[in-house]
């Protein structure tokens, strides 16, 4: 069918891995810089920083009116939905202020969705989310090492999963998606997606007989079919949740979408490059 041809035999290993490695390094620097400046690698949402998030369904108010209405409260941002809805975020405020704010919200926007997270609770969630990320990653690495038993291919899979998460996290911050419980879950989900295509590639190359570049091409056909179907499902989820103002799902799907594209690059350039060097396909 209409696959674009995937023929990496004309590139050297160095050329293959150059782009993903450069992006990985840049992303690490970027996240490190953020951490130094703000204490967090990615701008945290209210789940981690504490604060109040309000989703206002369809409203005739202009953004300026919304801002004016909430003057006097620590307003952080006002985002606009597709259908005239708003997504308003406040920084952390003491309980008494929140009580008056919830009355104010209720007066004008009785159908709003309101979520409030206290500062200490946010801290707890932050620590827990960090542990979850760490445990997931280590667990994944252990499974990969047990399955492949050989060092280089296992490392290749683990590195490309790590690279998926790191580059996606950097992209998230650049496009302005905050780190919330939902987006943390999406990053964890990426571990699963990432390993999917990497394992397919590694198994095909190491456990099947045949010419190296033909196996590579076969793996790419399958892998690309896989990732493109997933992308189509997630893309639809993103569009619908964006229009429908379901921020939880919109953020999760946006991160997954970014991650799936990053994964295409990491699997078929980084991981494939390392495998090429390992198997010696480069020499032909």
């Amino acid at each position, binding site marked *: 069918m209409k696959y674009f041809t995937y023929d990496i035999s004309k590139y050297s290993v160095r050329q293959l891995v150059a782009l993903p490695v450069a992006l990985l390094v840049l992303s690490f620097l970027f996240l490190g810089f953020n951490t130094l400046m703000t204490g967090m690698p990615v701008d945290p949402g209210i789940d981690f920083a504490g604060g109040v998030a309000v989703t206002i369904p369809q409203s005739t108010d202009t953004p300026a009116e919304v801002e004016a209405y909430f003057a006097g409260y620590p307003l952080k941002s006002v985002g606009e939905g597709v259908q005239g809805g708003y997504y308003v975020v406040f920084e952390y405020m003491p309980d008494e202020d929140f009580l008056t704010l*919830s009355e104010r919200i209720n007066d004008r926007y009785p159908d709003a969705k309101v979520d409030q997270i206290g500062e200490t609770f946010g801290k707890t969630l932050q620590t827990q989310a960090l542990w979850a990320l760490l445990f997931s990653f280590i*667990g994944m690495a252990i499974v990969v090492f047990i399955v492949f038993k050989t060092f280089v291919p296992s490392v290749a899979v683990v590195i490309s999963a790590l690279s998926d998460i790191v580059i996606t996290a950097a992209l998230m911050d650049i496009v302005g998606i905050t780190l919330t419980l939902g987006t943390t879950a999406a990053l964890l*989900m990426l571990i*699963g997606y990432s390993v999917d295509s990497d394992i397919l590639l590694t*198994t095909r190359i190491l456990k099947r007989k045949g010419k190296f570049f033909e196996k590579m091409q076969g793996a790419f056909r399958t892998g690309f079919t896989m990732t493109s179907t997933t992308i189509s*499902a997630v893309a639809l989820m993103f569009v619908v949740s964006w229009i429908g103002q379901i921020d939880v799902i919109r953020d999760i799907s946006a991160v997954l979408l970014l991650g799936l594209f990053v994964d295409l690059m990491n699997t078929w350039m980084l991981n494939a490059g390392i495998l090429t060097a390992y198997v010696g396909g480069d020499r032909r």
Partner: protein
Amino acid sequence: MSDDTSGTLVKTLKDWRVALMLILVVFSIVSIYVIPPGISNGMTGNLQLGLDLEGGSWIQLSFQSEVIRFDTDEDPEYFAARIGDALDAEVFLFEEDRLEIRAPFTREELEPVFEENGATIVTFEEGVSQDTADQIKLILEDKVNNLGTKDARINTITGLNGVTQYIRLELAGVDIATAQQIVGSQGKFEIRIQTVGNETEHVLYGDAIKSVSTPTQDPPGSDVWGVGFTLSESGAAAFKDAANTYGATTNPDAHEIMMLLDDEIVYSASLNPKLAAELKTTPVRELRATTGAGEEGLEDAKALEIHLRAGALPVDVEIAGSGTVSASLGEHFKVMSVIAGLLALVAVAATVYYWYREPSIVLPMIGTNIAEIIILLGIATYLQQLDLASIAGLIAVLGTGIDQLVVITDEVIYEGRVPSENLYLKRFNRALGIIMVAACTTVIAMLPLAVMDLANLRGFAIITILGVLIGVIITRPAYGKIIMAIMSKKPGER
């Protein structure tokens, strides 16, 4: 259809993998819509919906209390009592070497106090013991029931170390102001005395009760349960006056003492002779209400303790987080979620069709995927409520599901040839191998979220894990069988 084809079809249906999948699909549809009858709930049937789809409010509370593991040579009971006095706080020893301090202190504040009393702090955690958490849960449930809310969930969130850090209330169909009231409100507690016949007179209100103990046996080991409580000085004076004025000290049986919560009698008993005699001359501050012997006595004592506290929690709480979704917005989210799910399915079908251009591959693939989702929803009716996060998980599972069907398909019809049955099985098993590893990693990646109880992410993780397991164990093997039956009827082109 030729005899041969229908023969294969029947054979395929009889294969246990395919049969199991179909049975589970039927079971799931029955679970969602038929038993118990759920059609009246609309398209969502018996699915448990989370607050963000149903409308309602949640409040998560943290405790102004800490749990300390300590090390001392002294008798722990005495030690705990001394610490309580030193801190001027209520201290509850719930294990040999662990106590709960029911007031806000930092570790730095406590360390010198422990040292002075010849003990060291081994661990320090903010939170309450599980016993206290259960009691708080009971009190909150009581309050919620009084409100007549039909659908409320109250969960304690307890770490592996047995310290409960949070308690979470989810109240469907309640706005946030009402929810806050439930947490903060206290009932009106009153003690009255029987005068003549059914007549009673007021003695004191709940504000005269200074402290309430947990249920104890008196005398110790007698299995006769009761709750001790302490009156304020003025309360004790009022109690003495009333008992003397209305004759309860001379004829206790004719003048029962009654406890009322929100004007309902929750306890009634006569003074015991010893107390009656004592009250003739002096006010008594330490009182005790006996509830009876055995298990029943203990249960009554627990209930009475809650009543004596008049709905006040034994530990001060703070709102750690809260949220609310209106019913109409919940309804909107529900509709949008269904649309998102359906469109995602259509997108997947279109993409798969674009790559394979072969209905005999695409239809079973999509069919299997739908079966997977239905089974997942069916099982979820028993296990997990669906909220927005778990719907995202559901769609993510749809993505991995189709991924793995692609792996199977490409593996078995490799190089466009129809393999012999032996070769087919070999390839199919290799494909299952890839899938197993991928499934394993996804499950492991999600496991921390499922265990840690990070608010609503638990649903996302559980749905994802469940979906992956159903896929690997049930639907993908069945798909392998189906695609084999189809491929062996077709010339191997692709």
